[in-house]
């Protein structure tokens, strides 16, 4: 675990010194500020729209950062051959993969923490500037928003596992990023697949849909943005279930990635 943590900290350092990460984070903060411009356009639903916009905005950009940085952290090591200087040391390949994954998780936590604070501050300030009455202030469910942001972090962790998995099996960072993004998009619509099942009667199509439904990570269940706006907080059992789902799915993807990576030729 010590060696994995050394790799993780180096991965975090690499990501933090990456100008693209900075650029996207600045873009996210500017976006949050720009959301204040939307208030005159929202006709009485200002707070709800701002909450929705802020959370969707940081969710989208943090996913972009995670997909592209996540797929490149392993792939770049292989392409630039920096991995040779690591794996020639007394270090297992699984420690390398876990280290890379943990480094990205640390980056996600930092991004979500900073951006989450930005969202909370943005909502708080707009609420203050638009409404001065306590009645409206209470309409914002800060705990639910925090919980939705925490589940965004879980979503990013799962995306990281997917990106590490695709980094291990594909030969290009771009292909890895495209596959990860595609799987994320499919994963956001798995609930719709469930609805589709009710309409389809042919058995083999039902099977195909069922396989996709169970195989693709269900990112939509981790999306609690709408619930947060209406103050709906998942109960402890639901939260534990979703947390366990992320842990198990992430564990499964990392194990497969490690098994593939163990036999990968380092050229």
């Amino acid at each position: 675990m010590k060696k994995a943590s050394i790799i993780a900290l180096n991965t975090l350092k690499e990501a933090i010194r990456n100008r693209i990460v900075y650029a996207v984070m600045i873009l996210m903060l500017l976006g949050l500020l720009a959301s204040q411009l939307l208030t005159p356009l929202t006709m009485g639903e200002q707070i709800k729209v701002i909450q929705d916009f802020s959370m969707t905005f940081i969710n989208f950009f943090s996913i972009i950062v995670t997909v592209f940085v996540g797929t490149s952290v392993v792939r770049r090591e292989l392409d630039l051959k920096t991995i040779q200087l690591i794996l020639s040391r007394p270090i297992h390949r699984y420690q390398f993969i876990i280290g890379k994954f943990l480094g990205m998780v640390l980056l996600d936590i930092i991004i979500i923490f900073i951006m989450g604070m930005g969202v909370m501050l943005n909502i708080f300030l707009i609420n203050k500037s638009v409404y001065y009455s306590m009645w409206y202030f209470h309409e914002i469910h800060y705990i639910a928003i925090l919980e939705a942001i925490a589940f965004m972090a879980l979503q990013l962790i799962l995306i990281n596992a997917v990106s590490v998995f695709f980094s291990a099996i594909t030969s290009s960072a771009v292909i890895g990023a495209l596959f990860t993004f595609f799987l994320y998009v499919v994963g956001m619509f798995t609930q719709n697949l469930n609805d589709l099942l009710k309409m389809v009667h042919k058995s083999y199509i039902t099977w195909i849909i069922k396989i996709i439904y169970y195989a693709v990570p269900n990112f939509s269940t981790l999306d609690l943005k709408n619930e947060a706006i209406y103050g709906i907080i998942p109960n402890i059992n639901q939260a534990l279930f979703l947390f366990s789902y992320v842990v198990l799915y992430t564990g499964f993807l990392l194990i497969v990635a490690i098994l593939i990576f163990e036999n990968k030729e380092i050229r």
Partner: protein
Amino acid sequence: MKTIECKDIHFSYKAGFLRHYRVLKGLSFDVDQRGIYGFLGINGSGKTTTIKLLNNFIKKDSGTLTIFGFDAQDIKARAYIGYMPENPSFYVYLNAKEFLTFISRLKGVHKPEIKERIDILIKLVGLERHADMPISKYSRGMSQRLGLAQALIGDPELLILDEPMANLDPIGRRVFREIFFKLKERGKTLFFSTHIIPDVEMICDKVGILMDGRIAKEGSIDELLSSHIEYIECVIKGKEAGLFAERHKAHTLSVTMQTDTAIIRFTDKKFVDTILKDIVGSTVKLSSLEEHTQSLEDIFVHEAGRA
């Protein structure tokens, strides 16, 4: 115990779905402890593939490969190795000190010693003035120096060096040579892959010439050279030098006369005794007697031609 034992290694790269490209075809060699082993071969002969097998970057098809008695795939073998790739790549967002600290921690160097050891290594390879500069700004020669510094982290018993002097200027080459000799004096083993023959002649104790995935010739530089005698040249002086040379003409390769001097060239070593006995009983004097061997380059080219 041998530092490296390589027995009957076979390795093929996959070329497409069913096709395989055979690189190593029964490679066998041993590297003794302490000393510098030159692994010489033309491009594509399998040098880098062998180095990748030693580092467990790729897995052999068959055969035995051990480092200090541990299988090359065993992580324990890694603890003994310091590896320098042909064109080392680094994390460009770090500077040399940060990179060497990162590698030291991976190698398990005791934390309080890291800074001191890094300073020593940076000075050793001559990077003092550039230690805080981002690696992205490094020239190829500077990268090569950093590549050697990172290989020396943790004071490894075995250094695997892939074309270590390829991008260096003459001063850099001398610095590297001196470092290699110092390491040898300290009892380290250096496994040195190259196709630059003068480097091998100057540095290596033992040489293995790799051709077409097998060792074609192996031995110390002296052994290799003495086994490839081109001719023996005997220079005799005296008024009867011409007559003397004429008497032995049947056993010679050539005879050249210069006033009172005869230069006799022959290939058979047994003929040396005959000629010396004959000189003792005559009026001529022996001026010189020396073996003319092929250069390592001649041997290398000869082996390359046979492969």
